[in-house]
């Protein structure tokens, strides 16, 4: 009895707290919307699913942070929405020899703290990035000894080995240019006081809630159209969509597939659907029986109906994958034959492999609704070829550790080829040198694929590179270290009066050209 009473008191206290919290929430919101209806709107509010981790681009590689960093920093080279390379902070570049590139930097560019942007900042940034545990791999091809400042606005960058996709890597949001003085002065607090050259300046970060940026009026290119951008953290998918519907936010990132039709049908909203660079896959631990048998891997590929997964899990958004790369990645083999659902063939292969009566397996994944849903469907469908599976949902850190250590049978994971180049989408995942934490969690390797991936990495001629990658993908498809599952789409919703918003395939959308009508 006494316990019940305690519980009751606790509950009522919680209720009061919740009410207070809700009250606070609405009271801070109202002025925003109030402003909006009054005069010309110049505050853009963006809702995304998680808070920023850090605004030091070298301290994290997560999507929510990159989406904000993208507005604050510029990269030497830009990759536009069609994944074409464009000048950024570098006006032009030239390949001097197999290893070395020379970049001519734009003159008269100022950082938000008033400092001039020079070649020294580039050198400082790249050396600092190389040290980073989170994003070091993105610039990892660069030889730290080979960065040479020629003059204030010219720099030479050399790689350890010939590395064809260097420019795409330098266009990655994580390779944004930092100011040496700001970083040194900021010290440990730099992440809370980021300084870049981008169209927006950092203003405020309310942890767990929002990040506010203001227009950089000294921006070197076309200035931003809105005065203020607020990134709000709205974790719950449905809540984010409701905020968009009610006008609490102007743009909502990552509309959940379940809400697509609702946003589409709403006359006040616009839905943007674009193919993304992300893929979801079910990996096998090929270092372990029975997954070391290619027939078993193929059988499972045939036994899983990926089309129905796209329908059921993603509500028809995106498409079933044919191979390891999404079709908009450079070097993707677009004519691969999809495995397709074929139970007869699957049973036959299982019989050939000597597993007619199946086996027991675990499917590991993390707490990601879509992956857990996939796991449940796979579990159900594999029962038809007598494979009894247990689904293990583990915490993200544990998940990465266990799969890197090869303690898994099957696992469900995703990969985003942020650079839009096949090297990024294949090398880490299928090269034998990348076992474990580096990315190849299937522990599958193939000498020919190794050879092709190495060759394509150093080859300068794009046509030849594409050829190598095509061959590699054919082998990978045939050898099936994955169940090729899904190629994703970026889904965003905007209010109807938001114009000039385009999605970037890598998910880091530019906001400089967004305006209200």
């Amino acid at each position: 009895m006494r316990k019940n009473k305690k519980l009751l008191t606790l509950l009522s206290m919680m209720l009061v707290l919740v009410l207070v919290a809700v009250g606070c929430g609405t009271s801070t919101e109202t002025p925003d919307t109030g402003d909006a209806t009054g005069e010309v709107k110049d505050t853009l509010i963006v809702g995304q699913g998680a808070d920023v981790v850090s605004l030091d681009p070298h301290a994290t590689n997560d999507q929510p942070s990159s989406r904000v960093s993208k507005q604050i920093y510029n990269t030497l080279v830009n990759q536009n929405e069609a994944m074409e390379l464009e000048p950024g902070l570098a006006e032009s570049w030239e390949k001097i020899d197999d290893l070395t590139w020379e970049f001519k930097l734009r003159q008269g560019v100022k950082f938000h703290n008033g400092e001039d942007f020079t070649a020294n900042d580039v050198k400082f940034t790249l050396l600092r990035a190389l040290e980073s545990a989170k994003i070091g791999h993105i610039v990892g091809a660069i030889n730290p000894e080979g960065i040479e400042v020629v003059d204030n606005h010219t720099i030479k960058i050399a790689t350890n080995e010939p590395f064809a996709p260097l420019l795409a890597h330098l266009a990655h949001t994580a390779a944004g240019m930092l100011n040496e003085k700001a970083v040194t002065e900021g010290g440990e607090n730099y992440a809370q006081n980021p300084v870049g050259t981008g169209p927006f300046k950092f203003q405020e970060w309310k942890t767990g809630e929002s990040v506010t940026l203001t227009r950089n009026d000294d921006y070197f290119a076309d200035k931003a159209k809105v005065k203020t951008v607020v990134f709000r953290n709205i974790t719950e998918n449905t809540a984010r969509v409701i905020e968009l519907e009610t006008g609490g936010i102007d743009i909502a990132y990552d509309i959940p597939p379940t809400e697509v039709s609702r946003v589409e049908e709403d006359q006040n909203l616009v839905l943007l659907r674009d193919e993304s660079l992300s893929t979801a896959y079910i990996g096998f631990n090929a270092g372990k029986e029975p997954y070391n048998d290619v027939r078993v891997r193929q059988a499972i590929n045939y036994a899983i109906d990926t089309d129905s997964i796209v329908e059921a899990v993603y509500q028809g958004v995106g498409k079933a994958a044919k191979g390891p790369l999404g079709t908009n990645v450079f070097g993707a083999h677009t004519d691969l034959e999809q495995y397709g659902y074929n139970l007869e063939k699957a049973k036959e292969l299982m019989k050939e492999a000597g597993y007619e009566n199946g086996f027991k397996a675990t499917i590991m994944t993390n707490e990601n609704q879509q992956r857990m849903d996939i796991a449940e469907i796979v579990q159900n469908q594999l029962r038809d070829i007598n494979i009894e599976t247990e689904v293990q949902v583990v915490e993200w850190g544990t998940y990465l550790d266990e799969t890197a250590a090869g303690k898994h049978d099957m696992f469900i994971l995703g990969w985003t080829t942020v650079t839009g180049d096949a090297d990024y989408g294949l090398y880490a995942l299928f090269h034998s040198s990348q076992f474990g934490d580096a990315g190849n969690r299937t522990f599958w390797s193939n000498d020919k694929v190794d050879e092709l991936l190495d060759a394509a990495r150093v080859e300068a001629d794009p046509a030849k590179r594409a050829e190598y990658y095509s061959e590699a993908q054919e082998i990978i498809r045939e050898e099936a270290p994955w169940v090729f599952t899904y190629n994703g789409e970026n889904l965003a919703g905007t209010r109807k009066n938001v114009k000039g918003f385009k999605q970037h395939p890598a998910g880091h959308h530019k906001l400089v050209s967004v305006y209200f009508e």
Partner: protein
Amino acid sequence: MSKIKTSNNQEEVKAVSKKKRSPWVEVWRRLRQNKSAMFGLAIIGLLVFCAIFADLIAPYGIDDQDLRARFITPSRDYLFGTDNFGRDILSRIIYGSRVSLQVGFIAVGISALTGGALGAIAGFYGGRLDNVIMRFVDILLAIPGILLAISIVSALGPGLQNVMIAVGIGSIPSYARIVRASVLSLRDQEFVEAAKAVGANDFRIISKHIIPNSMAPIIVQATLGVAGAILSAAGLSFIGLGIQPPTPEWGSMLSSGRQYLRDYWHIATFPGLAIMITIFALNLLGDGLRDALDPRLKS
């Protein structure tokens, strides 16, 4: 009222000569007069029936996915509709009653047995042992039950068994305190002294004389405890730490229905109702039992 009282007294007088069939029959008689408690009991009975004969009652299997029949609203083929995998929700709720009842009863069993034993020992021996045990219980009591359960499940890993252990450990303190209190009041009564005088050892005294006489508060606490345990297990599953798929558990069904709430109300509603009704029924029964077991409370 007064009639009941007098008959009660008469029975006590008779009990000296004819010992059998007195207290429990009387409790049952009183319980039967309580309509809401009987209503609760009927629902629990129905649930137990569902759990036992789930295979016969449920129109579909636990994990009969039909990806073409997703999100069907309640209809004749699917009384409660289908979920995002095209599984019949009614069948899953029926099978889910197995899990919930299992968790409820076993978790309470764990906590009542360990808590009861600890409390009995503490109360009977007193002194330093009492102090040590009760301080340990106080420590447990200081941690919110659900938080304790979450940390235990995170340590042991999710799954039916671990959920039962976690939920069970969380409610040990209340049993320990209840049993200790009633043991303290019984310890110096004449019948215990009599037993001692005859030469019964401590174990016999505790198990034969003290525990049976302190059953009433334990039964009440346990009935309410089952409700609490089911709720905690559902809560754990809701946040993904409980029973793993595809086992149907009401809490996880509710959780997975949440994302479709705006379009398909039925996915989350029925599991939610199932939890609600079960807890309601158990609470009614618990209240009724308390009144029936302790007539003093009523007057």
